[in-house]
């Protein structure tokens, strides 16, 4: 690799004017810069949590009034981050969407979008908190209370938990029956008063308001009443089954509901 051919000392061109050729040791600026960056990095890790909290508040208020959407691309500035578990976003609509309710129930049912819209609607405006740290303030979801669908199906006595399945074929979730009957557990049809988009898990997603957002399964297609809790997709990767905001996953965020 080394070029060892002897070099002629004299060059064909005339020598340039006197120069400060890099003799001696110079100043080790490179080493200082690297060490300085390591120090700053360590300091950043130490204070980063607090700084990002403050930034989140500022960026959230800025991005709410930012028509360009540039602030949404900054860390913590934009609201939702897209963590897709499947290979591509699945799409279903008016004609091919079905939500089935089954398992340990007396009257299994299948709902089209129009059927779900015809049921009593509930609207909730809460913060959305992700277990990775980002929080989107004041997000509106509306749809059918989970308890409405469960009451209509008639849960049998053996049923203590719900298993949610999704039409992307990958995402699954779970709740206990008591959790599912809360009045802030929605089968959501709209988000911020618009139909839930496919990227956000539409046309129908779960919205478990008091829990970290991974519990709010996207692309909801099946509600099955089960005997025991069956941990869902993210729980297999180490997240808590009971994902209460601020009281699980080792986090202390403010409650969302």
């Amino acid at each position, binding site marked *: 690799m080394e070029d060892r051919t002897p070099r002629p000392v004299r060059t064909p061109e005339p020598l340039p004017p006197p120069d400060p050729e890099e003799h001696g040791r110079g100043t080790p600026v490179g080493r200082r810069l690297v060490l300085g960056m*390591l120090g700053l990095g360590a300091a950043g*890790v130490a204070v980063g949590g607090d700084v990002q909290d403050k930034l989140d508040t500022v960026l959230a208020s800025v991005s709410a009034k930012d028509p360009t959407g540039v602030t949404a691309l900054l860390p913590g500035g934009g609201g939702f981050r897209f963590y897709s578990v499947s290979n591509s976003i699945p799409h279903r609509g008016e004609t091919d969407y079905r939500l089935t309710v089954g398992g340990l129930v007396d009257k299994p049912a299948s709902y089209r979008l129009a059927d779900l819209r015809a049921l009593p609607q509930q609207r909730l405006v809460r913060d959305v908190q992700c277990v990775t740290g980002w929080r989107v303030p004041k997000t509106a979801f509306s749809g059918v209370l989970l308890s409405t669908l469960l009451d209509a199906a008639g849960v049998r006595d053996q049923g203590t938990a719900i298993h949610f399945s999704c039409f992307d074929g990958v995402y699954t979730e779970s709740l206990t029956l008591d959790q599912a009957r809360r009045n802030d557990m929605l089968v959501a049809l709209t988000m911020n008063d618009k139909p839930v988009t496919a990227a956000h898990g539409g046309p129908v997603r779960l919205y478990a308001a008091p829990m970290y957002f991974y519990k709010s399964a996207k692309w909801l297609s099946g509600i099955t009443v089960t005997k025991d809790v069956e941990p869902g997709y993210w729980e297999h990767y180490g997240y808590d089954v009971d994902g209460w905001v601020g009281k699980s996953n080792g986090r202390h965020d403010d409650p969302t509901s």
Partner: protein
Amino acid sequence: MTWTGGSASRTAAMMTRLHESMARAHASRAAAGVRRFTRAETWVHRALAWLMGVCVFTAACLYFPPLAEIVGRRRLVVTVHEWSGILLPVPPLLGLASRAFRADAGRLGRFFPHDWRWLRVALRRRRRESTLAGKFNAGQKLYAAFTVGSVLVMAGTGLIMWFPRLSPLFWRTGATFVHDWLALLIAAVIAGHVRFAVMDPESRRGLRTGYVPRWWVGAEHTLWRPDAPKSVPDKSNGPDKPVEPVEPGVPETRRRGREAPKGEQGKAP
């Protein structure tokens, strides 16, 4: 058997042509230019550039919602990002086996009086003053150090997030903060690096072939003496061996003065 014979002679002719053209290319390169980088160095740069490219692209796929939605497959993207990132230090570490790489790393790490002047001119007059640049100008020196520093910080904070069970949540939030914001800075700095490379085809050729034209050295790195004995340490007095004084009793400055170009000799006391 004419088929085999024909094929063999064709192959032989092809090899001869190949060898001739390789020799011609090498001769013309050597005649037209000066050696800026050895093959070890060009390969370190190439490997680093590919790893960095993969790392930055996967980062963008994890970070920007529109890209994330197109690409999906988050777990795969995360794995590729983690491995391309953690492998970034490997090419430069392997490069340390090459003496030329070590020598250039030493050049990049040290500032001399003209480097400070180069920086002042760059900051005040928005101009890259090539007459104040050695083999590497001060901007390139700072870029190299920034790259080393940011790869280390990104690897450290990345590892904290990669193995979340090994550290308290407090560290993880801090690491995410540093990783996210430094990533934006790195993206901007790399964009600048690529912009300068796009503007200067000869410097790109230097990293591709190892050779740059002589006029380019004069135009871009005036203070660099590619032919000076210093850049090719001779065997008896290489940097790895204890330096024997050539003439005991002669002060260091005067000995150096004799090797230096005539101009500096004139200034010697």
